[in-house]
């Protein structure tokens, strides 16, 4: 099907115009900085106040209707082993030796840190995770396919999976009690903590409070608010009386938010989609052209060779013809000469005899 240049350009222009009319404002994916939702809430955990009573674990289990654990929540012997979140524990409390004060161990509550730019939300290919304006990172089991990439992505190793569910396995993690906080209530763990080691409030307020606590008691706390910048910032913040790596918190995660780690790779996709076809078609076209030129050169060479042969043959033929012609002429001359000689010979023999007729004399 052929199409005139004019028509083609017309179509392209129309498409471009239509595209611009409905297109969104272009945004660079990689350099965009997300300051966080302005009223996002968070929780500040202060392990100086935590006594490791595990009431937060019990409350979380109750509020989220989780299955009962193997050991009851008031069994403090479980603290002798390090635990992690699993399919029925959105939060666990771990005990660590306190180097400075062996008789006063330090505790740490582990749960989803509700990152400002969550790795799980970035990694999920069905968008099952949402960073809500309330600050909580929520999970939608109704779209989850169960690929578990979120578990790979989370730098804090929080999401757990219901591996024993054959048909309806879900990813399980702390929700910051999103339904409760949407109603103005406190998260279950925060509400129940007897020593108020957990404080719920706006993230920026919590950071100010944390700084003030450090300033008020500089000998008590490590001068760092964990979660202020880690992985781009989290909404669950930590103050600690012992160095963070001694309470099982990684200090080598960096401050780059997780989405920024994959943004460059994803950014390359449209470029490849745009450029590769051009490149490959170009190579194909160049190859075709080369083949065509090679073919035509070959044909030309063959034709020339044929021409040459023909010319040679014609020359030879002409020569042969000329020679034959010459031969013929020579032969004719020779024969004529011979005939004339014979005739002369016969004439001489005839002079001695009488003329036979008058014809003989002419």
């Amino acid at each position, binding site marked *: 099907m052929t199409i005139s240049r004019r028509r083609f350009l017309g179509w392209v222009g129309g498409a471009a115009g239509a595209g611009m009319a409905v297109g969104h404002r272009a945004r660079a994916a990689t350099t965009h900085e997300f300051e966080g939702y302005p009223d996002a809430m968070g929780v500040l955990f202060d392990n100086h106040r935590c006594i490791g009573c595990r009431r937060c674990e019990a409350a979380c289990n109750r509020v989220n209707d989780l299955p009962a654990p193997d050991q009851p929540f008031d069994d403090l012997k479980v603290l002798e082993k390090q635990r*992690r979140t*699993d*399919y029925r524990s959105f939060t666990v409390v771990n005990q660590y030796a306190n180097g400075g004060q062996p008789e006063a161990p330090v505790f740490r509550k582990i749960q989803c840190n509700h990152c400002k730019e969550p*790795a799980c*939300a*970035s*990694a*999920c*290919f*069905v*968008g*099952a995770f949402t960073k809500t304006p309330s600050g909580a990172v929520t999970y939608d089991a109704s*779209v*989850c*396919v*169960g*690929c*578990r*990439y979120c*578990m*790979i*992505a989370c*730098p804090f*190793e929080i*999401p*757990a*999976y*219901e*591996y*024993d*569910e*054959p*048909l*309806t*396995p*879900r990813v399980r993690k702390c929700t910051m009690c999103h339904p409760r906080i949407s109603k103005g209530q406190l998260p279950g763990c925060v509400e129940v903590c007897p020593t108020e080691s957990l404080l719920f409030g706006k993230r920026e307020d919590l950071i100010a409070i944390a700084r003030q606590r450090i300033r008020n008691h500089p000998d008590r706390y490590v001068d760092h608010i964990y979660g202020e910048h880690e992985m781009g910032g989290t909404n669950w913040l930590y103050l600690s009386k012992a160095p963070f790596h001694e309470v099982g918190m*990684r200090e*080598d*995660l*960096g401050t780059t938010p*997780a989405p920024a*780690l*994959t943004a*460059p*790779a*994803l950014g*390359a*996709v449209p470029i*490849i*989609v745009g450029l*590769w*076809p051009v490149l*490959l*078609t170009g*190579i*194909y076209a160049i*190859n*075709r052209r*080369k*083949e065509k030129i090679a073919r035509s050169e070959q044909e030309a060479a063959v034709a020339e060779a044929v021409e040459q042969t023909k010319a040679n043959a014609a020359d030879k033929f002409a020569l042969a013809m000329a020679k034959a012609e010459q031969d013929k002429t020579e032969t004719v001359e020779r024969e004529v000469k011979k005939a004339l000689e014979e005739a002369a010979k016969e004439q001489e023999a005839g002079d001695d005899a009488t003329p036979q007729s008058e014809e003989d004399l002419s």
Partner: protein
Amino acid sequence: MTDSGNHAENSGNSENSVLTPFNMVAGMILIVGIVVTILRFTKGLGSVTNLSDYNPWGIWIGFDLLVGVALAAGGYVTSAAVYIFGMKRYHSAVRPAVLTGFLGYALVVVALHYDVGRPWRLPYPFIIQQGTTSVLFEVGACVALYLSVLFLEYSPAALEWLGLKRARNLAVKLTLVLTIFGVVLSTLHQSSLGALFLIAPSKLHPLWYSSYIPIYFFVTSIIAGLSMVIFESTLSHRYFHDKMDATHLEENPHVTLGFGKAASLILAGYFIIKVIGLAADNNWHYLGTGYGAWYLVEMLGFVALPALMYAVGVREKNLGIIRGTAAWTVLGIVVNRFNIGLIAFNYHLPKSERYFPHWMEIAISLFVVTVGVLVFRFIVTRMPIFYEHPDYEDSH
């Protein structure tokens, strides 16, 4: 009426019997596979795998997905060589390579149905909700599209077998477009499988984590494709020799030499860019550790060595060396993908939390590969893969 041999008494030796040793082993694998499949879908992943909350991805991803996709890359590499770069000498290698690719990708999707929690929801990212920030979304989209491309590229063989001339001619007309599309899609998803790990720098050992991972995965996919074509043709020659026509047999040494040459060059280039990556991140000091020694084994034994051996084979025109190196390189791809997905991943966790596959996971992986081999055998023994169909001999 002559007795055509000893076929009545021992059925195992008869030419027509199904119960060859290979078939019996394959059959057993299939049976075990079916049993484990039932277990997986009635009792859940926890009962058939050693996956944990720390190790959500095991060999079904590490081997079936990562290795499978890499080794199925022969399809796009061969079609590109023949149809885009115009290397007509390798034409007979296209159909086997495309078939290997198609089956490879199809089986990747099958294996995915085991690994993913709710496999019937696999279409969700396309039809329900798109997580476009996710590299996995891009992998899924490209793999799905590429599977269709491969199917279309493979279809002429099937259509010829079915005698559907018009459909077959239409399919053949699409070859160039499909090839270009296939290269684009392959570039995207091969590199993105590596890019999946970009999001977890804290979990992948520094010697393997690099912002260049996508490029490494793409380059190794080309190497894998080239080597796999040689490897598969070696095996096919052994077992399906009688199905091969004169063109195929005549072109095969050229394919082996040519692909071996290409593989040598690309392996050398890959080695160099890996060294550049090491230098860029200043990770030299890790080479002195245990993981460093293992990294050197991968680099020297499975990258530098095959690069050298391929070159030697090409120079000496020794097909045997090239074929052996191809098999070794395929193993090297397995080592590389295993390193990134299973061995160097979660390197920071204590031994008690590290992963080793359950025998049932190995059984399913074996099952999937066996199904692939059986389907391959079915197709090549019936359809014009290793030979040209007499009705269409002059039409490409």
